[in-house]
């Protein structure tokens, strides 16, 4: 652990410092709770009846109902949309992982003319706003009869996931010792063999955290899904945007909270389970170009 580096705070000698420490810890807990409150609020609303939602003062404890999860879910076909989202997110994440980590490897480790320009271009594509892509995607998909299909949404997601994976994995591969594949190649392994047999197994942690990021990013994507789906392949964020629009006219708080909870819960569990890798991946992604 590098925890010795904790600067500025943490001395325990004097009574004043001790008091400061307690104050800081209290502040830290309060800030965390404040940031968690909207999620707690959402979960609690999702189990409430309308009469307990629309009251002043707000009720902290009330009758518990699963109605928001049952009646509305059937009507709005939430379950199939959940499955759509899982398929699309997984598909896009896996394709992007394969293509992106291979490119990231080539950019970080191999001699290649134009590698700098290529890498720069791929990374620059992270700055392309999706809005600049949606009109053609919609027109072409419509012409080819590919709207409202998984593959279209998956390919659309690849546009922001591949640059992301290249970026993260390039940094990750750079951090591995060169001797790894050199040893393998001296033993008669080809580059490709060395990559799949040595580098990939050695990079599993980095790859898993990147994959999780991709799944989360694809899981919550809205714009592409909004434009490219309309019925069969509709994803959860699109459904939520629809409910949110209805909510403007009042009423659907419970269902909105219920769908929101179901969307957030698996990701939260997922994220907490792998938090160590996730935080590391996040930090590396930001700091190692």
């Amino acid at each position, binding site marked *: 652990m590098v925890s010795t580096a904790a600067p500025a705070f943490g001395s325990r000698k004097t009574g004043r410092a001790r008091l400061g420490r307690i104050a800081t810890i209290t502040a830290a807990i309060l800030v965390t709770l404040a940031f968690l409150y909207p999620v707690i609020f959402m979960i609690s609303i999702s189990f409430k009846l309308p009469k307990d939602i629309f009251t002043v003062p707000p009720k902290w404890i009330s009758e518990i109902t699963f109605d928001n999860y049952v009646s509305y879910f059937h009507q709005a076909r939430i379950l199939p949309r959940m499955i759509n989202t899982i398929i699309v997110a997984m598909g896009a994440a896996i394709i992007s992982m394969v293509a992106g980590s291979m490119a990231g490897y080539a950019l970080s480790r191999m001699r290649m003319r134009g590698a700098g320009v290529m890498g720069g271009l791929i990374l620059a594509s992270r700055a392309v706003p999706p809005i600049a892509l949606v009109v053609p995607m919609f027109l072409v998909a419509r012409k080819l009869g590919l709207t409202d299909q998984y593959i279209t949404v998956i390919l659309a997601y690849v546009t922001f996931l591949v640059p992301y994976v290249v970026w993260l994995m390039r940094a990750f591969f750079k951090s591995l010792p060169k001797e790894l594949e050199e040893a393998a190649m001296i033993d008669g392994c080809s580059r490709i063999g060395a990559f799949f047999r040595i580098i990939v197994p050695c990079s599993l942690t980095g790859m898993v955290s990147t994959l999780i990021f991709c799944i989360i990013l694809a899981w919550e994507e*809205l714009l592409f899904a909004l434009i490219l789906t309309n019925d069969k392949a509709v994803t959860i964020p699109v459904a939520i945007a629809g409910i949110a629009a209805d909510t403007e006219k009042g009423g659907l708080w419970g269902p909105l909270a219920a769908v929101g909870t179901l969307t957030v819960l698996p990701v939260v569990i997922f994220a907490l389970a792998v938090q160590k890798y996730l935080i590391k991946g996040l930090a590396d992604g930001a700091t190692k170009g």
Partner: protein
Amino acid sequence: MSVSTRTPRAGADKAPARGSGPKTAQRFRLGEPGTAWLFMTPALVLLAGMLLYPIFYTLWVSFSDFDLALFEPVGWVGWKNYEMVLRDPGFLESLKVTGIYLVIALPLQMILGFAIAFLLNVEWRGRGALRALFLIPMVVAPVVAGGVWRMLLDPLWGVVNYTFGLVGIGPVEWIGDPTLAMVSMILIDTWRWTPFVVLIAAAGIMALPGDVYEAAKSDGAGRWQTLWRITLPLLVPVMAAAFVVRWLGAVKMFDIALAATRGGPGNATNVVNLYIYEKGFRSLEFGSASSMATIVLIITIVLTYFLFSISRRLENRW
């Protein structure tokens, strides 16, 4: 077709790397650059097809008349669409709204993020738990965040107005008033994204070299002096990097605005992405939508390049 007749060049051009197993390569020893391009091929094909081609398509649509009956762009009209959108007050307004959002939200989130990271960095038993909990807002889909905050900020039933009422403020029209709607949008965005900055900052603070602090202590440096003279300068690269990543996300702002305010009231929170979306897919004005998208694309690329080079310089200087 037997594998053995393939030349390395052809392999580099076509075969996705997974198809040609280690055996082929072993036998033919693809030259290093050839293999490198082989590794690049899947990503390049995907990006060429799904990114580059659409960008050129957008350009083409932006310079043509869009025929809604044929549902495709027909005929070159030059700068007509551009002239039109540059005279469109809605578009200019949406650029301004986006600018205000970026200029306020990004610095706010950076400052809050680093401040909270320092708070969370105090050593105690619950430190890891708090840091893990900070992951949670970050994985709430933006569209969900927008919807939930809309409830929290509801003028009639919202918890925020109830709390404000307890101290005699309000009722506050969070969504109904143009200025407050912008405040709300920035608030929601800040709630969603500050944890991201916190986690990056926390990792950066953890990685600070301990010996520098020992030295500062023995030289008699005070707490604030240490913070301003040592910690913050050492964190500049992390800040620069976090800012760039946050910028890349913020310019795509769409979901929260759609779910929370739908751009309203009027055009008060109509960020440019939302405006273009409405123009293209509600009013079916694909020509104008495409020229607006092209303008946004150019602005974004230029500003990103600018920020990137500043960030690089900062990262290298320290």
